[in-house]
């Protein structure tokens, strides 16, 4: 009976790891075979013409994520500071609960909200609208992880700073936040990685674009959108490019996250 139990548990592990292995194997096998210089430097070609690439989508993703981080990161960290330093009360509990609730809101619903907030007011799809949608998704995650990281900083450190006559705002920024920097940045990167591959909230905000676009108020291509539209298309050439796009997306996410973590551990960002 013991052995049966162990056997069954082992079997579940194998069954769970199998798809993971299969996804990564396929991603690398299909993706690596389709990435070439043209894929990284050219815009999509019309249907039927071979070649072309996703350069505009790669840049578009970077722009949208930049806008999202620019809005979401400071707000999220600020809310985290509020929760840990000022929010040990009733209202703090409400903010905490709402953050958890926001974390569970389906991303497509966030897309509808960004559509109403930005697209309808501006009159057209835009990178800005996509950035707003992703920023809304980043805030609760960053707020909760920042709070947890700041709470790990011993109370004695704050008291030591107060004892030296340092005002509270300075203590929070230069002592508490600085001590927790690497944890806070890990939380930020977690939120970043989570939204970087999001597609649903971009469908009717950033919308996608077959050409280069450098304006933040125009429809903008994004890697995830491009992967989606190529994957459901009937053309082999586009399927090939969808795999390549997926591999590039994963590599971009992983390298962005590791670059920031290396910078943190080397101390380049330690003063941030």
């Amino acid at each position, binding site marked *: 009976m013991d052995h049966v139990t162990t056997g069954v548990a082992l079997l579940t592990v194998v069954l769970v790891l199998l798809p993971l292995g299969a996804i990564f194997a396929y991603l690398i096998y299909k993706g690596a075979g389709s990435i070439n210089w043209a894929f990284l430097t050219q815009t999509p070609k019309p249907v039927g013409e071979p070649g072309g690439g996703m350069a505009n989508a790669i840049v578009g993703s970077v722009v949208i994520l930049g806008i999202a981080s620019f809005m979401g990161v400071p707000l999220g960290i600020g809310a985290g500071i509020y929760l840990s330093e000022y929010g040990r009360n009733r209202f703090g509990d409400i903010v905490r609960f709402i953050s958890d609730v926001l974390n569970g809101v389906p991303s*497509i619903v966030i*897309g509808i909200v960004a559509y109403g907030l930005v697209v309808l007011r501006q009159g057209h799809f835009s990178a800005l609208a996509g950035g707003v949608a992703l920023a809304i998704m980043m805030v609760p995650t960053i707020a909760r*992880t920042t709070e947890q990281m700041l709470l790990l900083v011993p109370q004695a450190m704050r008291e030591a700073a107060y004892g030296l006559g340092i005002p509270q705002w300075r203590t929070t920024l230069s002592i508490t936040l600085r001590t927790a920097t690497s944890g806070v940045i890990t939380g930020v990167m977690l939120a970043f990685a989570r939204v970087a591959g999001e597609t649903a909230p971009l469908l009717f905000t950033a919308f996608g674009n077959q050409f280069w676009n450098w304006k933040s108020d125009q429809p903008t291509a994004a890697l995830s959108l491009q992967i989606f539209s190529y994957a459901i298309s009937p053309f082999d050439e586009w399927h090939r490019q969808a795999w390549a796009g997926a591999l590039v997306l994963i590599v971009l996410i992983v390298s962005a996250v590791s670059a920031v973590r290396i910078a943190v551990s080397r101390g380049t960002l330690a003063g941030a």
Partner: protein
Amino acid sequence: MEAKPASLLQGKVSELPDAIFGWAMRLCGLAVVSLLALIVWELVVRSQLSWHAFGWKFFVQSDWNPVEEQFGALPFIYGTLVSSLLSLVIAVPLAVGVAVFITEMCPAGLRGILSFTTELLAAIPSVIYGLWAIFVLVPLLRAYVQPFLATTLGWTGLFTGPPYGIGMLAAGVILAIMIIPIISSITREVLTVVPQHQREAVLALGATRWEMIRVGVLRNARAGIVGGVILGLGRALGETMAVTMVIGNRPEIAKSLFAPGYTMASVLANEFSEASGDTYLSALVEIGLALFLVTIVVNAMARLMVWSVTRGQPARNIA
């Protein structure tokens, strides 16, 4: 502005910067609350038109006809429920099994690697799951799984009809793969807080390993595991891209799991940007509002259940 100990002695530390900083942070906290208010406001206001036109009938009618402006959300609600429940049926035993293996049986060295790998599954974007499902999972289902199910379980009526590959079954399977990491990491968290002496007590009574796990561990962690499962359900209900890519996108209510279906999230993904006409758009927003309300209730329930076991320690932000 450098604060010096001397300034404290002279009693001249300005309190203004502190007050400004304090209020700026409170404003950030308030912003989180207003984000939720904003979401509710946008959804409620923009779905008014459809609400006034159809009322409660919106949720029980199955006619979805943009041309004649007749909208009923039942096929989408049905598709969302069936695909999510199907995914739970597949995912829960596997996820709990993995969690039990990691906490109760696994050698310590392997434990970290295993939990890291299962959590890696959670980091893959949903569109990549969808891509994989279209080109790998669906052909597998069509060639092997569906014919097998049809011959062995065809009499139930759940596995009949032509095996397209694409359809409710494919959606359930890919959703299961996507929610296993959440359920298993919450279950693992809950199993770790079961006191060691519970296990020892059961073993001392002469129980086998299986009885120890069943009586000593799983029974103690029941509420938390159910919470994890409901969190997984919340994720499955709102999951969009992967489902849209494999479910077939046909607003029909069919008994067979081989048949194509449609979910609330995928109808939004497919039709929202092309919706012409105010009623059409408003009907779609109303589906979004319904989806939002359901996931909120499901998530709040799950958090409470997980909290009741981990005793107030906040559940990790993975939902």
